[in-house]
């Protein structure tokens, strides 16, 4: 299926074949993402990066992706300085920006902003995260990293640990992993366990996740450990937070029980859920994961703008 001109708003809009198409192209783009090879595939094209909310990795990797493809970008990186503070609606901002660029990347604090932008824009819109909503490019780069590090996704044992209730990117990732046939385990304190709605959705697609609240109990057969941050503000009692966060910390003692080639991932930024000593192990893949944001976003930009390598 052709992606040209399409919007990338939610991972649910994409079929398994389309996600595979993005990952296959991303794989071919890795040497271009590292700078080993050069391309002018997006020469003469302009990407508008509209970041109405602070972002480091997503913004920089989109910028890097467009530059590596030989294209250029324009941006709103500080919404304080833009017309949004003058009360302009997003619908107006989008209709103005589409006149200045060939595609729009949008990060916005309100859920559904990217869907609205896609409705108003005749140019492709790529959702770079809308509030607590969708963040499809993160999901694809996570899938890409799992495929790359574990040698595939189907039948791999993937453990998601941390705040699985409120992090909607964890829900999207779980659904996508279910679609690709991974064996899922969700590890979280009962208060922060994966919502029933996501589990129901997974069961409908034939995947039955295992639930646990004890990381040590499930680590031994994991191929991938995907760690997310447990936020302090979820706990009314700070001592309860310290207790819970401590019991989900990934360190070298925990890794003694793990498979040798376990891949540890984290969307970053991390606080203290993975101790720095783990960075030195072969298992630490989170910086590789952050790098993978570049080839995956390069692939998406090329697909929606219809470029050739």
């Amino acid at each position, binding site marked *: 299926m052709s992606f040209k001109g399409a919007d990338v708003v939610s991972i649910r809009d994409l079929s398994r074949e389309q996600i595979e198409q993005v990952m296959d192209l991303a794989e071919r783009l890795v040497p271009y993402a590292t700078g080993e090879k050069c391309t002018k595939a997006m020469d003469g094209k302009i990407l508008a990066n509209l970041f109405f909310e602070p972002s480091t990795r997503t913004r920089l990797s989109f910028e890097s992706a467009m530059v590596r493809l030989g294209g250029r970008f324009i941006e709103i990186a500080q919404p304080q300085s833009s017309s949004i503070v003058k009360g302009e609606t997003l619908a107006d901002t989008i209709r103005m920006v589409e006149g200045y660029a060939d595609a729009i990347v949008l990060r916005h604090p309100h859920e559904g902003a990217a869907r*609205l932008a896609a409705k108003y824009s005749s140019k492709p819109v790529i959702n770079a995260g809308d509030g607590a909503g969708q963040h499809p490019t993160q999901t694809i780069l996570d899938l890409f990293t799992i495929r790359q590090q574990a040698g595939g996704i189907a039948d791999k044992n993937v453990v998601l640990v941390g705040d699985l209730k409120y992090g909607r990117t964890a829900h999207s990732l779980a659904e996508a992993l279910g679609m690709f046939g991974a064996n899922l385990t969700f590890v979280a304190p009962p208060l922060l366990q994966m919502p029933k709605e996501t589990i129901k959705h997974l069961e409908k697609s034939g995947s039955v996740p295992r639930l646990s609240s004890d990381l040590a109990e499930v680590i031994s057969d994991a191929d991938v450990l995907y760690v997310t941050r447990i936020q302090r503000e979820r706990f009314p009692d700070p001592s309860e937070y310290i207790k819970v966060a401590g019991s989900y910390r990934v360190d070298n003692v925990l890794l003694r029980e793990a498979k040798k080639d376990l891949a540890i991932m984290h969307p970053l930024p991390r606080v203290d859920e993975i101790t720095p000593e783990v960075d030195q192990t072969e298992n630490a893949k989170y910086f590789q994961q952050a790098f993978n944001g570049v080839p995956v976003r390069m692939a998406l930009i090329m697909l929606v703008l219809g470029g050739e390598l």
Partner: protein
Amino acid sequence: MKDFRVTPIRNGTVIDHIDCGQALKVLRIIGITDGVRSTVSVLLHVPSKKDGWKDVIKVEDRELDTKEVDKISLIAPKATINIIRDFNVAEKFNVKLPDVVKGIVRCGNPNCITNMNEPVETEFIVESKRPIVLRCVYCDRIQEDVAERLV
């Protein structure tokens, strides 16, 4: 002579088989307020051959349009609409919950872009008709207490 509790109407709309207790909400949805010039009869808790008990509304000199009917289906999915012309039932149809509900419900997610003063109509996919469950096309949030958020 037969003793009618409410007399038949010459022209207008009879909304029958409203779920018991929902009639006053239906009135609000179809905009029956103080400014109405025709007679409106509301029957609460009337015996029904089909369902035990029901509510009925009769609005004289007014025929409902589809958008109003769609709204009713969100809180009274079994309701039937009878359009009366010259004492006869000229048209009769069941309210039908559409697959997509546009512009008649507010999204329950306060952080949804549709609650932010954007020039956009709300839009929901009907995930389940009984019980009514809607999903916001914009923020993806599942909505259950729909009757509370009718526009």
